[in-house]
């Protein structure tokens, strides 16, 4: 492992912001830490960078304990959330900063700065003032600056956080392609699941300073570890139920579950696609309370008549019912997950 955290703990006051976190990142791997704000993601990066001392546990880089190694000697790169470009230097001065700190020769610095500006798509921008850059350009300069000293590990804190949506979607693809080409080892944090899934080889979901789940994007998406992860990923249809055989008894009535599901009292997730609308006299009777157009489909919010928790269903635009309609609901075992 290039980076290992062992039982890393950081407390602010009495509160554990990082609570016994264990995490490994292999060489050339792109790991994305995903979690709501306040879950300890940024503290995790700061602890690895050496900007935040651990209260207990260890950070190892290439197997070496980093306790007592100051930030400037760890050889890791960190791209800050709001870039933190040095305002009094031009673009080239920013990108070359790390090289200068490492005592690289002047000609090499110039060459590498040009190379990196080409790489991030800002050729010839070396003499531009930082203040004249757009948000996207600043992000590219920050990336070039972090990459310049060839860090063994590149860390990104909400790398695309402040950019607008279309730019974000384009850049995330560019980034993944770029890191793949350079073979960079990356540890990124974000609160945006789309960004995490698009960028990462492996996603780590954090909650209150602990790791809630770790796995490939597909694994995490298909099988959220618990109710928190499911809700964080945007799934609303989570209900408690007692699972017996291939059915679960829930507030929404009997719900079919896949064969081999864990038994007993569990959280049950029903994906919106698994909520099938049928005639009002069949299945669970619900009133449509809202419908939201989502581009490819319509999200329909349903209030069951018996006062059970609301349900969300995904419908094709043409068959979506209107607000106030009464419909029946049936469930599709394929789209149902019994959570841990």
């Amino acid at each position, binding site marked *: 492992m290039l980076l290992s955290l062992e039982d890393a703990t950081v407390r602010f006051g009495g509160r554990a912001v990082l609570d016994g976190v264990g995490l490994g990142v292999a060489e050339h791997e792109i790991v994305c830490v995903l979690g709501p704000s306040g879950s300890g993601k940024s503290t995790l990066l700061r602890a690895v960078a050496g900007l935040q001392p651990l209260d207990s546990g260890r950070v190892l880089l290439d197997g070496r304990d980093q306790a007592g190694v100051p930030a400037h000697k760890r050889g890791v790169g960190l791209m800050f959330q709001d870039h*933190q470009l040095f305002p009094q230097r031009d673009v080239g001065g920013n990108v070359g900063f*790390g090289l200068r700190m490492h005592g690289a020769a002047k000609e090499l610095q110039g060459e590498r700065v040009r190379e990196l500006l080409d790489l991030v798509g800002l050729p010839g921008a070396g003499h531009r003032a930082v203040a004249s850059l757009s948000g996207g350009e600043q992000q590219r300069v920050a990336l070039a600056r972090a990459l310049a000293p060839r860090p063994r590990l590149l860390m990104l804190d909400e790398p695309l956080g402040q950019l607008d949506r279309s730019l974000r979607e384009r850049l995330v693809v560019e980034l993944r392609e770029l890191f793949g080409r350079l073979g960079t080892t990356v540890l990124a944090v974000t609160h945006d699941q789309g960004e995490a899934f698009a960028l990462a080889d492996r996603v780590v979901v954090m909650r209150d300073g602990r790791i809630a789940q770790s796995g490939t994007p597909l694994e995490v998406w298909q099988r959220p570890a618990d109710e928190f992860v499911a809700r964080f990923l945007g799934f609303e249809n989570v209900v408690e139920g007692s699972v017996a055989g291939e059915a679960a008894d829930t507030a929404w009535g009997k719900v079919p579950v896949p064969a081999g599901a864990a038994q007993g009292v569990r959280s049950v997730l029903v994906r919106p696609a698994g909520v099938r609308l049928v005639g009002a006299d069949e299945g669970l009777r619900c009133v449509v309370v809202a419908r939201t157009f989502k581009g490819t489909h319509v999200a329909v919010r349903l209030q069951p008549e018996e006062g059970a928790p609301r349900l969300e269903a995904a419908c094709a635009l043409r068959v979506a019912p209107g607000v106030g309609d009464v419909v029946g609901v049936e469930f599709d075992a394929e789209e149902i997950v019994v959570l841990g």
Partner: protein
Amino acid sequence: MDLARTEVAPRKGPGKSAAARLGLIAVPVAFFAVFFAYPVAAIVVRGLKVDGVWHLGRIADVLGQSDVRHVLWFTTWQALASTALTLLIALPGAYVFARFEFPGKQVLRAVVTVPFVLPTVVVGTAFLALVGRGGLLDELWGVRLDTTVWAILLAHVFFNYAVVVRTVGGLWGQLDPRQEEAARMLGASRLAAWRKVTLPALAPAVAAAALMVFLFTFTSFGVVQILGGPTFSTLEVEIYRQTSEIFDLSTAAVLTLIQFVAVGGILALHAWTVRRRETALRLVDASVTARRPRGAGQWALLAGVLVCVVVLLLLPLAVLVQRSLDAPDFAYYRALTSEDGGLFLVPPIEAIGNSLQYAVVATAIAVLIGGLAAVALTRRDAGRFVRGFDALLMLPLGVSAVTVGFGFLIALDEPPLDLRSSWILVPLAQALVGVPFVVRTMLPVLRAVDVRLREAAAVLGASPWRVWREVDLPMVRRALLIAAGFAFAVSLGEFGATVFIARPDNPTLPVAVARLLGRAGELNYGQAMALSTILMIVCAVALLVLERLRTDRTGEF
């Protein structure tokens, strides 16, 4: 390209940065211990300890004397009156400078600051020339104020006008006007919006400015020494009288202690208001909030403030210059170049050279000590010890300069620190007063540097020292120059301590002025005016240079 990666350093404790900060602060702490606490303590001990026995009963004795109580009472009420009068006159000025745009504003802002850096001796002399015997008002209407308290109060307003304009106006200009607009959109009248939004935001700054003015006037020396005559005496003047004229050290020691306690209280209050002021306010660039006055009311306000500035600030200075030229062929100035039988061992003009040399050395010391202290104090989350030191650094502003000067003489006179006959004594004493200005100017700027900018540099491989050089220094360079300018002006004008320790053959400008004023005769008076004019011009030039460097966050002065 291959970048050699430094190997993992030997394990160091996590408290390394704290230790480094403690190391930084050690130099200023040592400086203050040796050149401030020790001399002041030595004076107090000398006054209250006779033959190895403490005579604390002296405190009660001294406090029991009716003339001491009279001095205390006068010191307090004149300071309160001066503060109230200064606020009354300067607050409209603060508003005008903050919110109005008018031609010549930059120059005028520099002009109103000139009095603040003027030596108190010059201020006293200028007011003497305006309202004293044979002064302008005397000549015109036969009005003399130098025997009334008004001369002192007006001189104090003159001196402290800039404190209010800079502290309050600086913040006022940066308050986001949209906050008031938001309140008005929610149904508040113009006045209610001001009262509920602007005033609370401004109150801590007003309080801090008022406390600063109170502190400066409570410890006023040069002004009262010259304008007070035999009738009016502040604590500081009384300490000087007891020490150098009556040689009653124990009374002087008790008075020093009283002043110390009072000043400590004022500074504690001030530190508290400053901390309140640092609480989150929405600040914007001051240049976007000012606009041209609109309507008769605003023009009248602007005109009123300008008249105030002209009458109260410019007139005394103009009279000073006029008096210095009141003899044919620059006779007073030419007299400065000749030795005059015993008053000085050298021509008074040499005081200029002395003053400049002392001021340069004092500035270097103040910038070094104050700079180190400011860097060490940069982190807001610093411990209680460091915070306490922050407040302690302000003490030299208020503790009797006379005591410090005299303390230097009696405390630093034996090995290993026998500096009695050394020239360095003067700049050391002057630097003590300069350090608070350096710290107060640099600290807000250093604190405004985004911590993550430093972290970004560290992660890119910059050691703590390089981080400071590459990130902090470029940002505080202007503040550093401004701080140096203030320290320079302050040491140029320092009087209370210097008057004790400057050697007779090496007087500084203020000391020479005071000596000239102390002697009768037209020529001496004229020379005092001429020398004061020179001192004023040197200070004003230094300040005008600084004003060009002014940033939006110049701190409190």
